[in-house]
């Protein structure tokens, strides 16, 4: 467990009667890029959201840098909700990037990136904005600092969202299909920022349909199908033939044009 940034153990998630995640165990190694792929509806987002406790697992446990997330077990082995303060502490190690960006529309790019530095980290406005500018510069948007989200393209919004997460200096970054809501010509700028992060050694978990990205940047790839984790392996192994029949079927259906050469 100690070498892994995230440890998912026997995770089960049910929505009412439907089992969306069925006994998932997964180790996310520190400093590596782990990609989650699979058909839509297979439970990728739910798994990622469980890793941030945005979704409460029905059973099983998740550890972030060795610390339990969301639930703790008492002396009698009974599962209990973590205190809000404890949860915030564990969560502070995680950054989350959403498919829909989720920027706060009433704040500028700079406001979005500096808000938590001011409110949560209690930095002065000047300090917070200085740190925020560093992050905006990193994603190439220092000249858009004063723009509101509605004045930015989708790709720029997503880069601001990444900067907003990075400003809090997380140890782990979670991405839920960060380019799926973007026009095809805008996905490159976001993927480039993510490549940069990966090369700096950031621990990343990426739900993606960009098979090319998963194959070239990913260190390990996990394939989910109908709530089951079918396998986790290095890209070279995952895409080598003969492939798992469900993966073969998935690639046939979901492979983006042009990426086929990569795999």
């Amino acid at each position, binding site marked *: 467990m100690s070498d892994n940034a995230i440890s998912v153990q026997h995770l089960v998630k049910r929505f009412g009667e439907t089992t969306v995640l069925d006994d998932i165990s997964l180790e996310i190694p520190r400093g590596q890029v782990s990609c989650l792929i699979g058909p839509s509806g297979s439970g990728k987002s739910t798994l990622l959201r469980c890793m941030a406790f945005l979704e409460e697992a029905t059973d099983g446990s998740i550890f972030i840098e060795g610390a339990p997330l969301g639930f703790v077990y008492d002396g009698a082995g009974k599962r209990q909700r973590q205190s809000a303060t404890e949860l915030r502490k564990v969560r502070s190690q995680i950054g989350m990037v*959403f498919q829909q960006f*989720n920027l*706060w*529309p009433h704040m500028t790019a700079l406001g979005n990136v500096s808000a*938590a530095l001011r*409110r949560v980290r209690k930095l002065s406005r000047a300090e917070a904005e200085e740190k925020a500018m560093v992050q905006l510069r990193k994603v190439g948007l220092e000249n858009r600092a004063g723009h509101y989200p*509605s004045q930015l393209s989708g790709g720029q919004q997503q880069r601001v969202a990444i900067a907003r997460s990075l400003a809090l200096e997380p140890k782990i970054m979670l991405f839920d299909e960060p380019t799926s809501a973007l026009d095809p010509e805008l996905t490159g700028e976001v993927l480039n920022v993510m490549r940069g992060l990966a090369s700096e050694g950031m621990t990343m978990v990426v739900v993606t349909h960009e098979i090319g990205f998963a194959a070239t940047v990913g260190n390990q790839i996990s394939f989910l199908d109908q709530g089951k984790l079918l396998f986790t392996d290095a890209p070279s192994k995952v895409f080598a033939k003969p492939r798992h029949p469900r993966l073969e079927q998935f690639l046939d259906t979901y492979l983006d044009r042009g990426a086929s050469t990569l795999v």
Partner: protein
Amino acid sequence: MSWKLFNLLLEASLMTIFVSSVSILIGLFLAILLSAANLSGIRPLQWFAKFFISFFRGTPLLVQLLLLYNLLPVIGVQIPSLVTAIIGLSICTAAYQAENLRGGFEGVPTGLVESADMAGFTPVQTFFHIRVPIALRLTLPALINEAILILKASSLVSVVGLIELTRMAQNLVASTFMPLEIYASAGLIYLVINLVVATAGRQLERRLPGVGGK
């Protein structure tokens, strides 16, 4: 009708504007607290907010004002009629504004709250820095509408002894016997004030980032 009379009406309209705008602002503040109570998940607070909102929306403002005016001496409170008027109007508009805001709070996308959670905001911080500004923007047209309704409803506060535009008009009619000119002038002043409020509201809507505008 002489300028002198018209000036008296204009002066009285300042009282109308003052009482209304102060009440709108206090009412907005109370409405935000009522919304917080509603969202708190704490049952007694939620019940209180529900009761408060349905009581003050379900009874006529005139009755509320008369009740307040007669209740205060009984419980030994002596305050100027201006304060009584502001209390009465604020409480009433708070109930309506809370009801308007409810839709706004429901309209705040979950994702925006989740990103605040991930950023480490406490629920109180998320409420004031994320939910309130967005809910206010979503319900700005309803808020402007409520401001106009309160400007007009403020004509009722004369029952607690405050001399505002309508009461001044009545007084002037009693001494000059020119009801048509005077009431028409009063109506015109209300109309102008409300047109200004409506126009300013539309400008604000257009300019506020994160609403209709950029």
